[in-house]
């Protein structure tokens, strides 16, 4: 399915943008509600720390996760996965972009789930790289932490969306119910 822009009617595009804005602003606003923050976002950050530690240990890195703090105990170095570092915002935007798109519901759902998982996989790389950056090049930590990786994660989100859009566009029409 595609979003046509015939000169006579731009309603599909307007409807898509409105749906995207509604889902993304609603999702971001939900992050500020305390029960969601403490009940979902913070536990998710702790899971990210544990998964990052497991991934590092798989490669013999000797990492530990205590709560949302990921550390390399033998070096005395660590990073905390705070709000804004868990790629939840980018995940919400990606999910909103896919869910609002006029495609089959199953394709949207699959795209949102797989897309967010891919984005979070990239975010794991971000977290692990920042842990080692803090250890070996702390002067560059802020640049990569606050700015560079954020832009890269969003660019990844855009690329995932473009790949999904092409994928769903090429599904056989017979499959559309």
């Amino acid at each position: 399915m595609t979003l046509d822009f015939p000169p006579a009617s731009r309603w599909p595009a307007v409807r898509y943008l409105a749906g995207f804005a509604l889902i993304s602003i609603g999702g971001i606003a939900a992050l500020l509600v305390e029960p969601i923050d403490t009940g979902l976002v913070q536990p998710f950050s702790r899971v990210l720390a544990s998964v990052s530690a497991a991934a590092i240990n798989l490669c013999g890195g000797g990492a530990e996760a205590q709560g949302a703090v990921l550390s390399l105990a033998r070096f005395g170095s660590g990073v905390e996965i705070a709000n804004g570092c868990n790629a939840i915002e980018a995940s919400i935007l990606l999910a909103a972009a896919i869910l609002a798109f006029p495609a089959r519901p199953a394709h949207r759902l699959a795209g949102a789930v797989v897309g967010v998982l891919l984005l979070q996989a990239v975010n794991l790389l971000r977290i692990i790289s920042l842990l080692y950056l803090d250890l070996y090049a702390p002067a560059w930590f802020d640049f990569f932490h606050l700015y560079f990786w954020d832009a890269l994660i969003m660019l990844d989100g855009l690329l995932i969306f473009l790949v999904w859009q092409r994928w769903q566009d090429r599904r056989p029409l017979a499959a559309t119910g």
Partner: protein
Amino acid sequence: MDRSARFRFALFAVAALVPLMGLWWLSVDSMIAALRPLVAWFAALLLPVRDLLPDGAGGWTAQTSLQVTSGKWADARQEANFPVAAELLRRYLVAWPFFLALALAPPRAPRLGLMLVAGSAALTLLFVLSATALLFVFVAVLINHAPNPADRLQFVPPPFYVAAPHYSGPIFFLAGLAFYMASYVLPLLAPILLWFAFNPASRRFGLGAPPPC
């Protein structure tokens, strides 16, 4: 738009982002300094902020017209000031290298010059609005004397009170939401929206719209 075009776009955009971020890092504090008067003027229209002064570390000190009424400095009859860290302001300008990386990646907009000029104007406006949203949440925390849900560690009330009527609960929440959107969403979403708006090719392979007749 075929697979190779998407791949070329992805490769170019990622590769361009690296040097552009480097250039941005070298110039970002100058950009913040250059835009300070514009933000100070705009914020003064909407908020009890009298002026923004450079703090010597790339950030600003916001001077408010809010009178301190109780607390440690109450007897000095002074107005409340607060620091605005450069780290926060720089975030709002990350949109620039990201926008340039998207704009310069093939397939480019047919009128690239127009896209760059209009995009730069839009991102300048976005910075002014974002910085004002940041000032708004600081002012809301000062006035309501309560931590804002947008960041309960950063936006904590100071050890004094100011004389001003409190913002209502929804407005206080909106101040936090505006800050959150301005800091974590818009600097990275705006370049993508601009790219879609100004580049018909991006709409063709991003949204599936047919090529123009």
